Structure formats: C-alpha cells, structure tokens
C-alpha cells in the first residue's frame, strides 16, 4: 500500500508515514519515561511521580495529538471524496470466489462482461459500482485505493485512478468462505488510446477458431456442457453462472489472478480445478482426454 500508484492511495500513504514517525517517537518517549521512572536520576523520578504529570502526559498529550490527527485524517477523507464526474463506470460484482465485471454505458446499462481483470485508462477517474452476488466480499487494490466492502443488497461506490500504466494486483479482503485465499484480480492501467482499442475489441463476439485444433477445442467446449455456466459470445454458449470467456485469451491471468494465462495452465485448470482451487464452483473435468484438452486450451487461449 505504501507503493502507491494513484492519488487515493497516495494521500493514505502520506498519513501512514506520518503515523509511523509519530508512533515511533511516542513509543520511544514512553519507554524512556519507564526507564527514567524505574532507574533514572532522582530529579527525573520526582517529576514523573507527580499526579499533575499523570494528567499532563496521560490526558493532555493524547488529547492534543489525537485531535490534530483526527482533523488531519478527516480532511484527507474529504480530499479523497471525488468531485468531478467519472470518465467511466464499471460494475464489479463479487462472487464466491471470483469477480464478475460489467462495463457500463452512460445510462448505467451493461455493455459487455469480463472477469477477474479490470482495464482502466491511465490518468482518468473511474467509478466502480461494487456489489455482491452472494456473501460479503471486499474490493481492495492496495496500490490504488483503500478497500470497500461488497454487500448483498447494497451498492458501494469507489473511485480509483492510476497515474501510471501498470498491472496492480487486488485481492478479496473480507473472508468469504472456502477459497477466499484464492480470490485475486488485477487492474490493468493502459494509455487512453490503447484502452479505447481494447474497449472496442471487447464489444465484439469471440474470434473464430484460427485452425482445426482450435475448432476442435470449441466443439469440445460445447460438447462437455461448458456453455451451461460460461458465456462465449457468438458460439451459442450462453451460461451466466461462471466467468464470461468471450475474450479470456486476452487476459493476463487465470483462476482469479492465481495462475498466468498460458495454454498449459488452462489445460491444468480444466482437468483439475478442484485440486488447484479447492471448493470452487467448477468441477474437475477429468473425463476430457488429453488431445481434446489440448485443443480446448488452444481455442480458449486464442479468444483474445
């Protein structure tokens, strides 16, 4: 969190350093007072023994420093609160144990869906509408902003902004059962032009298979019922339960930020999902034979 990459996280990091410095000074002061009281010269001990000293150090000092801190932190709070309208609104819904992402148009209607990766333009303020589909989760990208809970029945709004291009890791911060430890995601900040191009591509249906192997992979996907849970635009796979895979090949990671997105890890995940991420909602498809599995992974990898 101290390696902040956005204005929100930056102001918090500022407070953090102030707290660490002040805290260390007070801690050292109290330890010195204890040592002086126990083993110090008579003069120092006489001073520390006074009831007035208890009042001054125990009441006066904390009241003064804490009031100052409180005012400072409330000001920071006010400064963090966004004023200008956001450049973009994205709905992020926590699910056990992944992140469903919808990019919204000006009217707040979903334009396309993706999962576990949020792309944003550098230097623009983006509003996230945080919701939950089941239990409480908490959205946290330490380098960009503090965390905010995702609570069923509520919508919490969080502004984020990245000042530099980069990939910023986030992770669920509210215990949400079973595979909570493996519920990560990434925010990818890109220059606005690249971001616009990405946005365009996401609106399109899935790319047609590049070769025969990929075509076989698509058939394996449909034949095994993957489309009951997953949506791949343009293929007839209309499932809504699991992550949208229309452009899964273009994402940097698999399994909610847990594995790098490569053909091998795609195949490994499909064959042994319950081993890689215990209790997650996807069964291990052990019945898919080796060649079919490789074809399936090849097709998914190609869905950029």
């Amino acid at each position: 969190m101290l390696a902040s990459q956005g204005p929100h996280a930056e102001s918090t990091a500022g407070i953090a350093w102030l707290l660490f410095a002040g805290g260390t000074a007070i801690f050292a002061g109290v330890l010195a007072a204890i040592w002086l009281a126990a083993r110090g010269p008579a003069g120092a001990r006489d001073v520390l023994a006074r009831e007035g000293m208890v009042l001054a150090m125990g009441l006066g000092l904390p009241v003064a420093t804490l009031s100052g801190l409180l005012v400072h932190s409330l000001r920071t709070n006010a400064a963090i609160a966004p004023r200008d309208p956001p450049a973009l609104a994205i709905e992020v819904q926590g699910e056990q144990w992944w992140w469903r992402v919808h990019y919204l148009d000006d009217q707040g209607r979903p334009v396309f869906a993706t999962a576990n990766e949020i792309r944003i333009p550098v230097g623009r303020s983006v509003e996230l509408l945080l919701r939950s589909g089941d239990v409480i989760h908490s959205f946290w990208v330490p380098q960009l902003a503090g965390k905010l809970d995702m609570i069923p029945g509520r919508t919490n709004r969080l502004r984020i902004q990245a000042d530099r291009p980069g990939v910023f890791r986030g992770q669920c911060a509210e215990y949400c059962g079973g595979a909570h430890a493996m519920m990560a995601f990434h925010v990818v900040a890109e220059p606005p032009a690249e971001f616009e191009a990405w946005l365009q591509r996401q609106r399109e249906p899935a790319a047609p298979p590049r070769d025969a192997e990929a075509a076989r992979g698509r058939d394996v996907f449909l034949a095994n019922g993957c489309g009951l849970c997953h949506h791949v635009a343009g293929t007839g796979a209309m499932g809504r339960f699991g992550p949208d895979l229309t452009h899964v090949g273009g994402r940097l990671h698999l399994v909610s930020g847990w594995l790098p997105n490569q053909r091998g890890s795609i195949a490994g995940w499909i064959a042994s999902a319950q081993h890689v991420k215990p209790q997650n909602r996807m069964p291990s498809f052990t019945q898919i034979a080796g060649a079919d599995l490789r074809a399936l992974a090849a097709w998914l990898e190609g869905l950029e």
Partner: protein
Amino acid sequence: MSIPALHPLPRPEGEVEQLREVWRPPGGVRFLTVVNNTYIGIFYIGTALLFFLLAGVLALAMRTQLAIAENDFLSQDAYNQFFTMHGTIMMFLFAVPAVEAMGVYLLPAMLGARDLPFPRLSAYAFWAYFVGGLLFFCSLFFDLAPRGGWFMYPPLTMKEYSPGIAADFWLLGIGFIEISAIAGAVEIIVGVLRTRAPGMSLDKLPIYAWAMLVFAFLIMLAFPAIIVGTALLELQRAFGWPFFDAARGGDPLLWQHLFWFFGHPEVYIIFLPAAGFVSMILPTMCGVPLAAYRLVVIALLATGFAALGVWVHHMFATGIPALSISFFSAASMAVAVPSGIQVFAWIATLARGRVRITVPTLFVLGFLFIFVLGGLTGVMVGLVPFDWQVHDTFFVVAHFHYVLIGGMVFPLFGAFYYWAPTASLRPLSERLGRWVFWLLFLGFNVAFFPMHVTGLLGMPRRVWTYSADMGWEPLNLLSTAGAYGMGVAVAVFLVDLARNFRPFHDKGGAGDVWSAGTLEWIENSTYGVRSIPVVDSRDPLWAHPDLADCTEAGAYFLPGTATGTRETLVTSPLDGRPEYVVQLPGPSWKPFVAAIATALAFYSLTLEMVLPAFALGALTIAAILAWVWDSDRGPARPPVDVGGGHVVPTYAAGRLSHAWWGVAVLVVVVAMLFAALFFSYLYLRLVSPDVWPAATGHALPAPAWPIATAALLLASGAAIAWAGRALARRRPGRFGWDQPALVLALAALVGAFAVELVGQRSTGLVPQHTSYAAVVYALIGLQGALVFALTVMGLYTLARSLTGRLGPVRRVTFDNTRLLWSWAVVQGLVMTALLHGAPRILD
C-alpha cells in the same frame, strides 16, 4: 498502630474448628459438588488455561501452514475451521472466562468475604462452561467445526452458504457460554458492591475490584447484543426468518452492528481486569501505593463508557455514511485517552517507589512495552483512510495480538506468578518464570512485529495460503519461528506448574511472599480469612502491620460461624457498613446437574434432536428449582452479634437483600436484550421501509388488540403490587390474598402475551416473508420467553406460599419475582407501543 480487637482475645476453643468444619469440602467423587469460590475459581482458571493451550495448538498449526508459500500442511477447509476455532476459543473460552475466573478466585479474599454471594451460581456457570466448551472443541474432530470466522458474518453463515450444522455449533454453543459469562458478572457486581469488609468504602476499594466492577457492567451491557444476534441468525438458519437476507428486507449489516456492539467492548472486557492486575502487582513490587488512584478509577470508568460507543470502527470499510464514520473515528481516538492515564499512573508508581525486578514485574514491564505499541497501532487503525488500507490485513492481526496478548496474556501470566502463593503451598519458580517471560516476550515480538509489514505488503487475513510471487514468505517464516518460541514458553510454564503448584491445601497457600498490602495476602483457608477485618485504608496490611495476625487470631468480625452454617457479611454498597449476615449454600449436585443438562440441551438442539433437548431443558429447570428451593431459608435465628456490639439480622428481604441486587442486574440484562431487538426493529425500518406495512399495504391489527394487551399488562402489574401488599399483612397459617392476586397477575401476563401474538397472526403476518414480520415476531418471542420464565417463577412462588415458606418476613422469593415481573410489564408496554405505534407514526 493497630486496629483494636472487637472482642476479648483469645477466642474460645473450638471456634475455628467449627468454622473449618462448616466449610469443609466434600471428599471423593462428591468433590465435584464443591461450590466454594477458592475451588471453583481454580477449576475455572485451569479450564481457561486448557482452552488457551488448545487454541494455541491451532495457532501453531496455522503458523506452520503459512511458514512457506503454497504449503499443504493444512487443507483449505481445515485452515478455515482452525482460524474460526482459534479466534472463537481464544475470545469466548479463554480470555473472558480466564479473567472472570481470576475474579471468582481473588475477589472474596481481596474484599474480606468468605465466598461469593451466590456460590451455586458460580458452580453452575463453571460446569456449563466446562462441559459446553469441551463439546464445542470436539466439533473439530468430527469435521463439524464452524468455518465462518469468529465474527460469523452473514450471508456467509446463512444456510445457503453454510449448510450443515457446523455454524449452529457456533451459534448455540457460544450463545449459552455467554449465559455463563453473565452469571459470573452477576456474582462479581453483587460481590463487589455488597460483600466488602466493614469500612471498605468505595474509595478504599482495591483497584482490581474497581476494574472487575467495570468489567462486569460491560458484560451486562454488551453481551446481550451478541445473544440477540446469535438468536436472530439461528432463527434465520433454522426457520428462514429473513433478518439478514437483503432480498426479503433484511440486511447483513444488522449482524455487524449487533456483533460489534458486543465485540468491541469485549476487548475492554478482557483488558480492564488485566489493567487491574497491573495496578495491584506494580505497587507491591515498588513498595508504594498506586499513584493517582482516583484518576485510575476515573480512567477505568471512562474506558467502560467509551467502549460502548466505538463499535462502528470495525465497519469503516462497509460503505456507511461519512458522518457516522467521523463520529466513530473520534470516539475510537477518545478511548485511547484513559489508557494513557493508566500508563502514566503506572509510570508515576514506578517513580515513587523502588521497583524489585521479579517475574511478575517482568511481565508487567513486558505488558507496558507491548501494550503501548499495540495502542499506537490502534490509534492508526482508528484513522479512517489508514484503516481502509490495513483493515482485514495482517497489520490488523498484528495490532490486536499486541493489544490482546500484550494487554491481557502478559498481565495474566504476571498475575499467575504473583498470586500463586495465595493458592499454592509453594510459589512458582522465579528461575523458570524468567525463562517463561523472556521466551514469551521475544517469541511474541518475533512472531507478531513482522506481521505489521506483511500486512502493509498487502497480505489479507484469513488466507490459508499465498503465492510465492508475493514476496511474503520470509516474513511469514519469521512469524512462524516466533510462534514456536511462544509455544516453548508456555511449555516451560506448564513444567513450572507441575513442579510447584500445589493447590487445595487446608492451610491455603505460601502466604505473603511479596509483602503486599491488600487483604488477599492474609492467611486464607476455604472459609477465607478467620475473622473479617475492619478496613480503614487502601492498603490495610501496610497501614497496620499486625492486621494479618489479629485477623488470624479472630479479633474482628465473625470470628466463627454465627448461624452455624456457611455465611458471609453483607455490607452497604457505598460505605461498607455491616447490614446483615447472609447464610450461604454449601456443596450440592443440583447446580452440577443443571449445568450439564443445560449444555447437553443446547447441543441436542444443535444436532436437531428436539425431544431430548426439551427433556434436558425440563431437567435443567427442575434442577435449578430444586437448588433454589432451600436457598431462601428465612431468618435462621434472631439478630446475631457479629463483633464489637454490631448486632445484625441473619436475613434480609427487599432492596436490602443481596439476592434482590442479583435480580436487578438480571433485569438490566433482559432490558439490554430488549434494547438490542428494539434497535434491530428501527434499523431494519430505516434500511428497508419497502417491507413495512405502509409500503406493502399489509394491515396492522385493529387498535382494539393493542389496547387489550396494554390493559392486561397494567392489570398484571396492579395484581402483583396487590400481592406484595397482601403478603406484608399475611398472618402465619391464615389465608392471604397474595395467592389469588398472584394467580390473577400470572393469568393477565400470559393473556397479554397471547393477545399480542394472536393479534399479529390475525392479520396473516408470516415471519418468513419479510424482515418486518420477522422482527415483530422476534420481539413477541422475547416477551414470550420472559413470560415463560415468570410463569415458572410465579408457580414456584405460589408453591412456596402454599407450603408455608413465604410470609411477611421471609419473602425474598416473592420480592425477586416481583422485580422481574415489573420489568416484564414495562417491556410489554414499550413493545406494544413500538409494534403498533411505529408503523402508524413513522409512515
């Protein structure tokens, strides 16, 4: 200068032998029936220590799992159970019982009482906790342990996301262990306020007793919120009442409010007694009275007060409005101030005396080091923007372990070493104690300091594993090494206990090895001190060096037994004037049976064995009634001379009676239960006006219903008052109007409840449909539970009247019943006004 003897010395032959005989604990298997605080206190402490070890083993297993990245020592599911059980056991089965147990053990001796005011209640609370706690722990062996975290947030803990009975183990198991904590709080409040040595006015109260008083008040005020929370969640799980289900107008945040209204005071419930230990140990080791006594008392009271107003700081990241965030942030800062006062009072005490470095001193100094650091990080997390970052990370794990282990475990170990000589023939070893301290201190800091950094590097809490790419591994490995160091420290402590701890001796303990100033250092046997001394100073043994000898010689109050039974002196709450001698009950199987039956009833309910649960519930009630049947014994004999010409009665009723005070505490607990539900009603109305009658068009019961309810309640209140007056005029053996009046009062009370229930049902209101309906029935249900209790008490009172055990003098049973009755009438009226007024006025 010594305090003059109240009667001629030496005392007559055989007096002390008689005292010993009356207080002698039963032998053999009947030893289980002891109720005396010196025995129950030590059982209690031992059991708390057992749970500390068990939860500590769970912690070591978790640290082993996290030592290296992507480890598979524990499975994900096992880890989730372990951290849930670690937190739950440490908080509910170790920390609160441990400090309560120390109070049960120490307070009577420190106050100059022979026992706590309700010995059988202590025995009941202990055995319920012992059996219930062990059964709860055993759920781990059957893969039935809860895995929703010690905070059990819904919706995760709702049936949809936590099927099976693991979560019910938590809700029912913990729910009833809280009852045991409340029973202890009743003891402590009445004990501290009513059974002090004569002359011990409140300004001479040992600071530890002040701390325990605030502790008990906090339990009384805060625990009802979690009892209501667990009851609502269990109602949702078992019957589908949607308190926390957003789709039907519930709100998951309602749980968080109820949980943290208890959960934050819980921290101070644990810390205040430990601060009390420090305020006792340090003056002894410095050889001077505690500096700034009055300021420390004010600080304790202020902490207790502020602790009730900071719960929302656990919810800063939930997206609640900025205004409430600012308020609760400020309140959280404010709570640091009283702690600052105490720290500097301890520093001033150090400065006034010359400190001896003993094992208890080391633990106190270690406490100061760790606690101050934990307090500083506490201020940090109280600041909202900082909290948004570190909330639910290892930074917070580090913070609260600094506060809890530093603030409670270190003083507790110091207290073990300090007070062991009052219980054991041999003190604990100073040599082994130093090993325990240094291993624990270093192990603790090595384990937990790095966690601040791990958290700042972004590691969230409650994760069973992490990727090697995150760079969290070296710090985690270090933490694990430190944790094992703490494990070794605890092992050395157990060796010390095994070698030196020799309790349950007739002679009490090794005696005043530290030259301390308070009463618990006078030679203490099962019966407490030989005679109850007159107190005119905060450190009586320092003010009067011969006080211990004179007390032992029987120079002061009650040198023998005045009534021929177990007894103690009841004094006035403010200035400690002798008021009466209370006869105390002795060993009995009844509280033991009642406790086991209560525990088994709750677990039968968990296992959905409804009939056995009811049978055990009935057995519990029967055992409790049997045990109280002989507790209201009436005046044993005419007023007795307790010493120095003080002739006091051997029985008291009404407000003078200690039992009336116990029931008064209970009334506050019931009122807090009601307040928590009242709050839930208004909160749900605020969050989901769309399911309230005005929005749904659901008809309210016609005004005739609430008018009938209110009329019946008022009639019941009038009838019970009439019964009280009739009882005062009653002649022995004659008919009295108190009996018909009581029957009338009971009929009206039950009738009022029935009318309210039928009235709501007549509109077709179904609790499963909306949060509105659920909370309406929950309020009626609480009233129903109270009416059920009063029905049992009313019939019991009637039975005592019919068997000639109730009269104008011997009327404690009636007075206590009437006190709770009056509250039930008030609560019923407020509830009726809420249920019928709020939907009409607010909408």
